[in-house]
């Protein structure tokens, strides 16, 4: 039986097709904003890659910021629950999930059964999110994927004191102008995201094991800074960015099983 999870985030659309609630038969990530055809493209990519026909999908769960805009879903769930479900399947012992996405950062506290018991999210601004990293990478003329490599080359990480994206932008520009090296700046930027998100983590309480999910989790610069900031080891999955879509597909499977759909 196939189930589909679609995660419509603020900057990317993700789709995961799951077989019998276990195997990811295909997945797709499309960089596109809500309201564009990104979702259907992500879904079509996943279908094409898996060879599964649309009619064969038994149940579809949509999640993410744009979940309500997707007409093809049987159910809409918040990305909070979906990340909790996804992470729990990947790492059964995880109690704290740090999910940094394009526009927001969330920290989930899971109970022993892997259910979300509590969560906090960043407030309205983009500080401590993928957006912050995008803006900074842009100033430094780097691709977002290069941040990790640059951060690793840092000798004296710069201190970026502003967490506000707009203020930090001018701070980075002036440090750049005064000759601070790019790797040191990148390390400082990662550190700034980590510090901002760590304060959210502390609000729900750090309970091990800690996992990072969402697109930013792939960035070792931020992950390492976060480990230092929290003083714990952080696990992450190669599917980090797909975790919401994966959780949605898993939830879809469970729903069919439990409700005899």
């Amino acid at each position, binding site marked *: 039986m196939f189930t589909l999870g679609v995660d419509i985030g603020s900057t990317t659309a993700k789709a995961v097709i799951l077989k019998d609630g276990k195997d990811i038969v295909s997945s797709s990530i499309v960089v596109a904003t809500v309201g564009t055809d990104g979702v259907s493209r992500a879904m079509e990519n996943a279908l094409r890659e898996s060879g599964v026909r649309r009619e064969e999908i038994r149940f579809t*769960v949509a999640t993410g*910021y744009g*979940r*309500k805009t997707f007409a093809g879903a*049987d*159910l*809409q*769930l*918040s*990305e*909070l*629950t979906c990340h909790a479900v996804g992470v729990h399947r990947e790492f059964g012992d995880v109690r704290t999930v740090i999910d940094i996405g394009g526009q*927001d950062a969330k920290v989930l506290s899971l109970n022993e059964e892997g*259910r*979300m*018991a*509590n*969560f*906090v*999210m960043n*407030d*309205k601004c983009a500080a401590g999110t993928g957006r912050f990293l995008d803006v900074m990478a842009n100033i430094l003329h780097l691709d977002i994927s290069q941040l990790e490599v640059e951060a690793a080359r840092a000798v004296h990480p710069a201190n970026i004191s502003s967490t506000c994206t707009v203020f930090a932008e001018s701070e980075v520009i002036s440090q750049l102008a005064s000759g601070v090296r790019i790797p040191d700046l990148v390390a400082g930027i990662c550190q700034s995201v980590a510090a901002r998100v760590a304060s959210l983590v502390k*609000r729900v309480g750090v309970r091990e094991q800690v996992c990072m999910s969402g697109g930013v989790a792939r960035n070792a610069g931020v992950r390492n800074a976060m480990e230092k900031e929290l003083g714990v080891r952080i696990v992450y999955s190669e599917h980090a960015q797909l975790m919401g879509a994966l959780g949605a597909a898993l939830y879809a499977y*469970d*729903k069919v099983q*439990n*409700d005899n759909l």
Partner: protein
Amino acid sequence: MGEEVKKKRPAPDPNSAKYKLGQIAAKAYSDCMEAKARGEMVGWCASNFPVEIPETLGLSVCYPENQAAAIAARGGGERMCSESEGDGYSNDLCAYARVSLAYMKLKDAPEQNMPMPDFVLCCNNICNCMIKWYENIARELDIPMIMIDIPFNPDYEVSDAETEYIRAQFWGAIHQLEKITGKKWSDERYKEVMEISGRSSRAWLAATSCAKYLPSPFNGFDLLNHMAVMVTARGKKEAAEAMETLLKEYEDNHEKGDSTYHGEEKYRIMFEGIACWPWLRVTSTGLKSRGINMVTTIYADAFGFIYDDFDGMCRAYARVPNAMNLELSRDKRIKLCKDNHVEGLLVHTNRSCKLWSGFMAEMSRQIGRACDIPVVSFDGDQADPRNFSEAQYDTRVQGLMEIMEANKGGRSDGNR
């Protein structure tokens, strides 16, 4: 324009509490307008200033906070806030103050007009921002300001020394007002007002406590509208009668298994903080569409004052929510959660009200732990619509619902 709309809607029952309360709230403004037109002096009054004083003296007062809420709820918040910001008032300042200062200057807001003041009555038991706000009004309009200082109380009880300090100021304010307006204080009349205010308060508190019933006989958002009368008119007989009608209706609803919350009440939450007036519909629909009833909020109960003499009145005004310490604030809310079978707490982190929002993170954490309920907060503002994001609100409310559902041992049906 209204005619067509009116035809479609059933005529409101003039005996219903909703109708009566709506009339009183509207009349508060028209009475003031008429008094002003008659050449009487009228005042602007802070919401937690002892209303018993102007009421006993027979003075007409109106409430800038209530007016700002009305303006914001009717879509004028941003316009008025921007007007004040253009005059140099910071965007960080309380939005009620920004709306009010803009109104003082423009003297007109189609959403809700009120007469210009001849004096202002200020009391800092809810916040100190109010002092500067009222001082500016008094200075700009060159009118007297009566100021009562009720300090933040770090203790659980109100001490005799504090009572004495407040009592002296209340009498000072009375004498000042007698001098300014030429009206005379009467102990007899005071007793009457105190009794009426007590009647209104008792009925109001009893009505709000009907949330103890399962399901609740009312939709908690009703309280946010009805409390306007408690703020502006609790010392008036019509208010006491309307509140008693409200209580009776809620009791009757319970008997009949009826409720003003239409739909199945699947979850019950407490709402913390001032309502997001510009986004009232969005915030209430976000809950309603998920079967969540906001059954209780400290904000509504804050306007029930029960006491039986002048000193009791002094103590009551020293125990309003923003004047009390973290422990007492927390315990009062824990009681509300427990009495009303609350399953989750939704906290409005209000950009305007620093005082209220400042200790909210720690307080709600303690409430969540004591009641074993999830706590979720969202960003907003009571009158400035710019500080709210609908999508973020929605995700948080859905997350809250999913936890409450999981706590009941069920699986979420999400939003189909």
